[in-house]
């Protein structure tokens, strides 16, 4: 926990989706790394975000509240936040908190990007 172990790379896919690929663990400390990457994308006018969680092995409530916060901000801007590639551990946490009712979840990044393309 002292040494947040999370890296995020940003890829713009075509016209309508920006993929933030996270690798590592998302908790109350490391969430700011993902938060800053999302801030930068939003500031650049990219409002259709996909967070690729394929490489995320752990996520606690600090990470979940970041997803909720980003969901709200992006929705308010007329955009959409999608989460893709959740491992079982992360999916369990999302389901346990009933946040699967709020967040848009996709099995793969491709499916999330595809959905972004057809949205709005």
């Amino acid at each position, binding site marked *: 926990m002292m040494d947040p172990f999370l890296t995020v790379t940003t890829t713009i896919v075509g016209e309508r989706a920006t993929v933030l690929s996270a690798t590592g663990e998302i908790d*109350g400390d490391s969430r700011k790394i993902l938060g800053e990457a999302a801030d930068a994308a939003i500031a650049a006018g990219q409002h259709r975000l996909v967070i690729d969680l394929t490489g995320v092995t752990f996520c606690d*409530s600090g990470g979940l*509240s970041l997803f*909720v916060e980003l969901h709200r901000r992006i929705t308010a801007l007329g955009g959409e936040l999608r989460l893709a590639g959740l491992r079982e551990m992360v999916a369990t946490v999302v389901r346990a*908190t*009933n*946040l699967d009712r*709020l967040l848009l979840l996709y099995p793969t990044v491709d499916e999330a990007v595809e959905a972004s393309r057809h949205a709005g």
Partner: protein
Amino acid sequence: MPTLSSMSEPDQGRWFEPLRAILDRSHLWTPDDVTRSVNAALAGLGMRVRIWLIDYEQVLLRALPEPGRETPEPVPIDGSLAGRAFSRVVSVPAGEDGRRRWWVPMVDGTDRLGVIEFATPADADGDERLVRNCEMITGLIGHLIATITQRGDALETARRSRPMSPASELLWRLLPPLTASTDRVVTSAVLEPSYEVGGDGFDYSIDDTTASLLILDAVGHGLRAGLACAVTLAAVRAARLAGGGLYEQARAADAALLEQFPDSRFATAVLAELDLGSGRLRYINAGHPAPLLLRGGRLVRELSAGRRMPLGLDDAAVEIAEETLEPEDRLLFYTDGVTEARARDGDRFGLSRLVDLVRQHEAAGLPAPETLRRLAHAVLDHQVGPPADDATLMLVQWSTPAALNTVPGAGTTTREDQDG
């Protein structure tokens, strides 16, 4: 129950003066003055006391300093006679130097505050009568100490083995007593790490017909989480006290959290109401671990219905779940810091370990607060280093015997059992 017939015996009257002296003096007590004035009041009976308070982590009993007397070293709960009196809520004799000593459990209502050590003359009344009177004196002192805790800092500092974080300081002042009992129900809770609690909290309200219950876990750590927990507690209480049901309580927390925390701080929680006549339980689960229904030491089921999103997420769609308890049933509420606690090898504390410990402690006849104290320590012992998350447990027993088991003097003074 203590026999009231003994009260009518002629020399019972000599206990009246000390009681009156303690009560009279207590209006102006300072923490320093408590033990001194109790001892002055008891001098005529040839008795002395030392007052021991339980520390926040519920590991050691710590003597309340008395001016002019040396303060003894703290005494551990585990493996001591004093600890036995505390943990079992039962008076324990300890002979010494030709005098009789008694360790008498000190509670406020049924909330365990510590023990009072009585040194009594060897030729005092018969043991049974003597100890009932010591319990009566202790009962008065327990209530009085609870009322003056906030008059000065010394009663608080006497309970602390180290400084407390601001978040913990905030939270402990908001929480109700850990344990409360009535004729029909006992509810007891425990929070760890007690000096650095973040966002966990609990609440209850028990009246003649209903026990209202709340456990919650606000996102994050430290003071921010503590503030979110405080806002949630206050919103739920305000709605409940205004006559709102479970749905209104949850919506009030949604509104308060949304207003105060634009960065989407949320709190997972279970809000429940237990009808104390019929055993009907109604509950809402806002993204929290499902409470456990335990019967005869076994897990009947996880109460996994009534689900909505965490408090603070403006979730208007909720169905209130229902369950019917049988007499003697237990409900165990917990936060994920309990089951997620990880050992060095990654092994999580988990649900089955939790249920198994409750079963063991129930079989040993432990009072609810003692079961929880041991559960909390088992969780702490399971993990390496400081806890990664808050761990909170709340046990509710719909049971008159379980409630009586938290009352001092309700059993016999020398109740035998297998472990300390």
